[in-house]
């Protein structure tokens, strides 16, 4: 079946089964490989995207469920104020190692910062504990979010 998807502000039409996860539409049909596959069952957060600004796991979000909603991916998150600050903080603090999970980390962190400009440690725990990083960059992820939040206050 054909679906019109709003991806990063552009309408893209795809012809896939209705239960096809958005993850595979992005990666394999549209060729947008910034969103990563990690577990396929919403346990690791590597595939996190924003649906109308809210973080969701694209590996269990069907194309039918996403139809008519705004999809934002790592490729475009830098166009938002929170996304840009998170990316800059990630570079300033050298957060990524292998980097594979970082698209998802950044999408989760951006959604947090957009919703809570001054997140507490507990807010960070709640927003980020669904994202696994096998390189263990968690210490820097926490610092990175705080760095980005401070950046807003200074600005």
């Amino acid at each position, binding site marked *: 079946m054909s679906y019109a998807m709003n991806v990063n502000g552009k309408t893209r039409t795809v012809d*896939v089964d209705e239960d096809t996860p958005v993850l595979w539409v992005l990666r394999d049909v549209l060729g947008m490989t910034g969103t990563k*596959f990690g577990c*396929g069952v919403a346990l*690791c957060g590597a595939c996190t995207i924003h649906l109308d600004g809210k973080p969701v796991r694209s590996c269990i979000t069907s194309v039918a469920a996403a139809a008519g909603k705004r999809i934002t991916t790592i490729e475009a998150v830098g166009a938002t104020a929170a996304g840009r600050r998170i990316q800059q903080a990630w570079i300033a603090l050298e957060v990524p190692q292998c980097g594979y999970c970082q698209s998802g980390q950044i999408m989760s962190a951006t959604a947090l910062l957009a919703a809570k400009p001054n997140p507490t440690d507990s807010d960070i725990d709640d927003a980020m504990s669904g994202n696994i990083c096998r*390189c263990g960059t968690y210490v820097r992820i926490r610092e990175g979010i705080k760095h980005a939040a401070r950046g807003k206050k200074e600005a």
Partner: protein
Amino acid sequence: MTGHRNVGLVESDGVNLSRRRFLSVSAAVGGGLVIGFTTDPLIGVADAAQSVASPPFTPNAFVRIGGDGKIVLTMPYVEMGQGTYTSIPMLIAEELEVDLKQVRLEHAPPNEKLYGNPLLGVQATGNSNAIRGAWQPLRQAGATARAMLVSAAAQRWNVDPMSCRAQSGEVLHEPTGRRSKYGELAADAARMPVPQSVVLKRAADFKLIGTPAKRLDTPSKVNGTAVYGIDARPPGVKIATLAQSPVFGGRVKSVNDAKAKAVKGVRQIVRLDDAVAVVADHMGAAKKGLAALVIEWEDGPHAKLDTKQIVDQLEKATLNSGAVAQNIGDTGKAMASAVTKVEATYQVPFLAHATMEPMNCTAHVRKDGCEIWVGNQALARAQATAAKTSGLPLEKVVVHNHLIGGGFGRRLEVDGVTRAVQIAMQVKGPVKVVWTREEDIQHDMYRPCFLDRLSAGLDAKGMPVAWNNRFAGSSIISRWLPPAFNKGLDPDTTEGAIDLVYGLPNLHVEYLRVEPPGIPTAFWRSVGPSHNVFVTESFMDELAIAAKQDPVAYRRALLEKAPRAKAVLELAAEKAGWGKPLPERVGRGVSIQFAFASYLAQVAEVEVSKDGAVRVRRVVCAVDCGTVVNPDTVRAQIQSGIIFGITAALRGEITLKDGRVQQSNFHDYPMLRLNETPAIEVYIVNSVEPPGGMGEAGTSTIAPAVTNAIYAATGTRVRKLPVADQAKRV
């Protein structure tokens, strides 16, 4: 966020090929082949075409300087998060006298001779030895290139080379103020004789080494543009996923693919002896197709295998003596005179790697050649297995290496490449084989389980006069690098069990190689020490307790002849506030490690709740890794290694039942998460010793620090990993 362009990784068929041949090779397989080559603004087709007329200056396999001034460094070590794509260029750039910003990086092609790791003898990135292996040769490569550029300038200006110097990509002749950029000198430099020997810079003159360098790969890793193996998209690529025999060694008996073929987007079902793959337009369809397959398996000889049988086998093996890995003095005699005797048996489990990027490989097999797109730690092996599997000659296999979404030893293996080629041989056009997470965990090659029997004798003062260790388990080296397995021993399996930092007058260590049936084993981050350091540092703690002494003071007394180990121990203890009071059910544990040519000491502070839940609150690590190349990367690797090690120590365990791996995804093979992450402090000791390895060291030191802390908090001695709920019984 366009900074990635500056570090876009380009590929080539290597500096051993002429540009003309390079172009012809590229042309032969189509424009999509050379990723970055045709799209990169800095190294494009025009640039290469120009270079055909004027060959670039390539003094060695690592440096290439074009007439246009482009400096390309060829990276023989792969980037998997450990920072090699920054630290290795630092070594070359330091001697070449260029800024990191001026260089571009290129993955080295498979070529054991040019790009072999001097410490392994094969082209592989592993065992924490990239910097150790590169330290001399890559600085020499930079210095040689610099010397030839200086000679070229001196000849052109008719001055003494000694009166010229190199700086920021130029050669200067200060007396006359003349200067020339490297690009302008490249053609002449290429005609200069290669110097027989070059003098390397003194540590005091380092401009880059030891200073924090921004990682060159970071910008592309925050905006989705970094390209991993799983992101390869050669034109027309199909996506496949697979089911391999759930029992290792089993085979496909029958396949009913009627329903799978009916799934929209499914193109083909590929049947192999021991696996079935579904080829589709996208992974969603491939997975749906796989779920719709009805496969009957013939389980084979391991159908009834379970973990207990393997452990029993190890237990039995250790009743007999093994190959002597190290002997000092006479432990038998010393034991006889000991006042106190301590004995303990330890055990560590099988572990999966669970890299965040699941196993994958893209392959295109044609009659006349084969192309592979993959992120792998051992490229020459990837090429070799593709050639062997496809029946094509080695030179017909082109491997495009990619960034690695987690290696940890998993991608030192090429089983995924073999699989992809087997499947691609039956598919027209390129096919990307992506393993599901379940397949990735259930068909990993695992860190072996080991069983260790230790005994020690203490004198009247409680100090160890005899130390015996006999352990059994798989030797990965015996399969991976057979020549290094000698007389029943290999250097990896015993690392951390022998050559202890402690002054022990009588020591005897034996190893028994016992290969488990029905489960493949492989290197896992921190390799031999991942097992041995847990055992030796736990047992050392037991001796301190038996001697009624403080674990730090007890160790310190044995380190009189190991000043670097003693220094890290004292630093870690001081920074951790060793000895200061802690709340109830909170304890500190210490461990020391000498491995990968680096010294580490860690103090873990652990809280055990009344219901037995273990939380690591804080970890202090002191490290002496010799000369530090990029200090921030050292810190990052320690932080990373500690998290990796805590995950394994607390929860990591792969078990078999009916020949099948029981774990399948992150719900039953759980990872430490951000909310469970301890505060981590890293203290680096200044040193001018040659650099030691850093990628793995943090992992192996942490398990005994944590379990020793659990003992301090509760009195429960953990002798078997993972900790799981062992602290519950208190």
